[in-house]
């Protein structure tokens, strides 16, 4: 293998792909990045056996072939290259790759290519094309609710459903539940439902270019197989193992009715919650005390201090106080887009619901903390 390319592009693509490489694995090759050159294309590949990523690299191929380089070290080397161009050449007899740029030469020992697994290929018959921007938007709204607790693998995923003219994602760590339903402009040519590791989708979010012109049109090609999902976007291929098992039925978790339904200025309320949360440390709950026409948000941390702030809300009925984990409440408020939000409550020990008032299809169900008063 021998290729020549721009140092800057190599660095950019390497940074993207190296995030997926395993940091510590029994198989050394998994901590590497595979450089695979065919006659007309070069690809960088990495995997940790759960999530795999392949990104294209624009390069002149002098000699096709492939080599697995240690990701961390190679990244450090490429970041420090002195010249705009760089040449990578596999030297089989020395079992290393020569990286030459300007007057600098590096020889980096390769990792065992045989141990680097073949990565999933895109294609197959069940490909669904989804607008990339809508997909990414939906992921970012719900991702924070996915569990990081590996003892419950099912909850570490995001349930992604796409069919007709709707994209829906659900995530829950059992303390809160996020649901986002995104309407699509065009009917999808197919449908799928899969529990995808949240980590894989967060990588995907980084992969899809955002905010640039023409991105509205960018398309994400999604292929779901027995236990695997493959995303293709802008020449990159991200694949992930799917999570086995039945994802909780979110509809059964949503209460049928609520006692209180309050329309609140979302930005104002979020600001209050952020401020008062500063004094809710060491797992102390944030208290919301509702009285006729107002809510007082307060927090208290023993040996640290306390804070409170009152803001007007259209509350009527028996006063009550409910406690929430400040971080969970903040996550919910921040996931509602700006504008007004609707806060629905039942009683101090029943779940509360936050939704956007503009009917944008976002729900955030949050379980309270039992207050010892």
């Amino acid at each position, binding site marked *: 293998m021998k290729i020549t390319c721009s140092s800057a592009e190599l660095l950019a693509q390497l940074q993207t792909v190296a995030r997926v490489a*395993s*940091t*510590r*694995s*029994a198989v050394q090759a*998994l901590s590497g990045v595979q450089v695979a050159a065919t006659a007309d294309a070069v690809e960088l590949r990495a995997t*940790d*056996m*759960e999530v795999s990523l392949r990104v294209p690299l624009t390069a002149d191929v002098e000699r096709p072939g492939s080599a697995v380089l240690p990701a961390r070290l190679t990244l450090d080397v490429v970041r420090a290259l002195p010249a705009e161009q760089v040449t990578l050449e596999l030297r089989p007899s020395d079992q290393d790759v020569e990286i030459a740029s300007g007057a600098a030469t590096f020889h980096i020992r390769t990792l065992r290519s045989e141990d680097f697994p073949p990565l999933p290929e895109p294609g197959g018959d069940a490909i669904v094309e989804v607008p990339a921007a809508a997909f990414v938007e939906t992921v970012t709204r719900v991702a924070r609710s996915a*569990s*990081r*607790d*590996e*003892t419950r693998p099912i*909850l570490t995923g995001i349930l992604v459903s796409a069919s007709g003219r709707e994209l829906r994602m659900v995530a*829950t*760590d*059992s*303390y809160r*539940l996020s649901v986002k339903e995104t309407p699509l402009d065009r009917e999808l040519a197919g449908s799928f439902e899969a529990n995808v590791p949240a980590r894989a989708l967060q990588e995907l979010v980084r992969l899809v270019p955002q905010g640039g012109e023409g991105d509205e049109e960018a398309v994400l090609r999604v292929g779901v197989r027995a236990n695997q999902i493959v995303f293709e976007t802008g020449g990159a291929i991200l694949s992930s193992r799917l999570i086995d098992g039945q994802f*909780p039925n979110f509809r059964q*978790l949503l209460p049928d009715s609520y006692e209180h339904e309050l329309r609140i200025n979302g930005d104002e309320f979020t600001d209050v919650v952020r401020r008062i949360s500063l004094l809710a440390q060491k*797992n*102390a*709950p944030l208290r919301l005390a509702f009285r006729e026409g107002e809510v007082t948000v307060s927090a208290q941390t023993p040996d640290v201090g306390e804070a409170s702030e009152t803001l007007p809300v259209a509350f009527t009925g028996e006063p009550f106080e409910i*406690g929430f*984990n400040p*971080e969970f409440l903040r996550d919910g408020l921040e996931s509602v887009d700006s504008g007004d939000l609707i806060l629905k409550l039942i009683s101090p*020990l029943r*779940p509360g619901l936050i939704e956007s008032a503009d009917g944008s299809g976002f729900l955030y*169900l949050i*379980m*309270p*903390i*039992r*207050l*010892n008063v």
Partner: protein
Amino acid sequence: MDAFYVSVELLRRPELRGRPVVVSGTGPRAVVTTASYEARRFGVRSAIPAARARRLCPQAVFIPPDFELYRRVSAQVMGILREHIERVEVVGLDEAYLDLSDLQRPRAAMRRVVAEIRARTGLTASVGIGPNKLVAKVCSDAEKPAGFLALSREEACARFAGAPPGLVPGIGPKTVERLAAMGITTLGRLAATDEAVLCERFGPNHGRDLLARARFHDAEQLTLERVPVSESRETTFPQDVADPAEQERALVALAERLCTGLKRPGRTIGIKVRLDDWTTVTRARTLAERTSDPLTVSSVALDLLRAYAPARPVRLLGVRVAGFDAPAPEVDAGQLALPV
């Protein structure tokens, strides 16, 4: 609990009461797990080789351990403790710390607990009461069997001033040796030693810690729920094993046994190798993903063993899995959850 394993054995073999009894394995390298107080008079102590115990006390009755039974009895004893005391920290099959701070009359309460353990299990326990775990532990050991001692911190300092420093948990044999080399052979002398001198000799943290222990200062809280940080299985071979193939077979068997009993998958896999000259090494590797898969664990363990390539015959092999699940985000105890 006093001489716990032996005492449990005597429950089903009362005819052995009053005789020296030793619970130990049977192999050539077995060690004594517990000796009855009669056997202790002959110098038989826990952790000495069984062969030596036989020489010291040939008339003793040797009984192989029945851990299944000990666990059952232990659970019964701990259950009795929990009926009386809300906060209990179990630190082994035969030992627990109890938080008595809410009790009006802690001594009376503990007398009742001990009486009930005796009535319901036939076993005797020793109690130590103090302002912290350190004093309580030393007191509980001071008057075994069936001891009952309550001391303030100052009283403990005075009473154990003449005892060797090793009496206090956390001051190990190596430290005792180094202290002796400095002429410090009693807790009293250690307590009176200048902090600067200890810090210079043992480093600032260890130095200050030694002084605190010698003065029976301890701020450690009860650990109510023990979260294991690692699990391991190891075996001492009846004869040293020089053949790599045989070592590897043993290692794989250990890995399989370990994985079978593993409650949670772990990320770090380690081995322990002790050579015939008692050189003991550990090697570990951390994986990208947690595993409890016997194939993965044994292949990593084999890798580590091959990389170490024991230069001498191997006396002991062990496999360990650590690095269990990352702690879930901390949530308040009162946090309610959805039924998912």
